[in-house]
């Protein structure tokens, strides 16, 4: 834990040091580059803002209506017969739409069952090996005005499914 904490603390300072140091060694105007690049950051945020509003309103409405819970219970029963814990299903569902909402559910599980329980281990691994499909697709495709996403969703779902299956399997092996 100590070593890892140290490493993750080191990542960002090291990257900054490397980039700025490298630029200086090449005798480049690093400060100027940084300023003109930083301006672009504002444009990036402005570009993803509308998509983010649309998506977060969608997720907010779905959650508040109780539909996600309903779907979770429904799929939870099906999952139960496959030997997957029903509590896992809402996390998997929400994970595809919103990272922060999924983190909230994940912390609920930590609180109730503990992070070292089978369920706690499973969600930990699952959160680490999956991504927010619809957020990523919306932000990237909307930015280039692509409407037909072709096989992206199928591939993304397959990758997520593989991640979830591996998480359930590996968490079981850990105990």
């Amino acid at each position, binding site marked *: 834990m100590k070593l890892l904490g140290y490493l993750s603390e080191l990542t960002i300072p090291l990257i900054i040091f490397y980039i700025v140091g490298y630029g200086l060694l090449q005798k480049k105007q690093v400060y100027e580059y*940084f300023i003109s690049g930083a301006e672009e950051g504002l444009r990036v945020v402005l570009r993803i803002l509308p998509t983010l509003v649309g998506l977060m309103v969608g997720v907010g409405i779905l959650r508040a*209506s109780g539909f996600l819970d309903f779907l979770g219970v429904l799929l939870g029963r099906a999952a139960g017969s496959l030997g997957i814990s029903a509590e896992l299903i809402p996390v998997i569902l929400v994970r595809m739409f919103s990272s922060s909402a999924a983190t909230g559910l994940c912390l609920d599980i930590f609180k109730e069952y503990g992070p070292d329980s089978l369920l706690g281990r499973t969600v930990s691994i699952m959160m680490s090996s999956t991504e927010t499909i619809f957020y990523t697709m919306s932000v990237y495709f909307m930015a280039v005005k692509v409407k037909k996403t072709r096989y992206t969703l199928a591939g993304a779902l397959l990758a997520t499914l593989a991640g979830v299956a591996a998480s359930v399997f590996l968490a079981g092996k850990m105990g």
Partner: protein
Amino acid sequence: MLNYLWAGMLLVGIAYGAFTGNLAQVSEAALESAGEAVTLCISMVGVMALWTGLMHTARESGLMGQLTRMARPAVRWLFPDIPAGHEAQEHITANVIANILGLGWAATPSGLKAMEALGRLEDSRRREGRSQVPEGAASNEMCNFLILNISSLQLIPVTIIVYRSQYGSVDPTAIIGPAMAATACSTAAGILYMKIRGRRKRT
């Protein structure tokens, strides 16, 4: 696709909310979420500017070019139809490195740039009559790039480890190994799928 998905989320949510008598919460959630999205954007403007500033510096000083050359074999294997030296390679490399290091905010700007570059690549193919997709449709490279992104590339799940130790785990880092293995599984599945689906028809 996204069109129907988004509309579906809203319509199903509102209809279900009306059915279960949760409409008051639904309208509150709609307004609140819109505000939350803006708050989130404002809070990430600074970090985003920091990363795009650093990325620009790395690009202009030639560091990014060097990293791209190092990563070229992998990028060429994943995206064999991007011409050598095309700008898309550099943005894809930057995006993948940021993802592997778990720097989510740093990945987005280069990801958007990569998508734009891939869009220009497909436009030039269209002009030469070599494109296999109509305008407004994702090119194979775009699909593959997003599948790769969504398959999760992060090496060490730092935030989850922090949460685990906050919630009293006796061994918060125990999940690192399994998490890497699970990430490898999801990425392998994504790559396998894109290799099968993403092949260009040779003429």
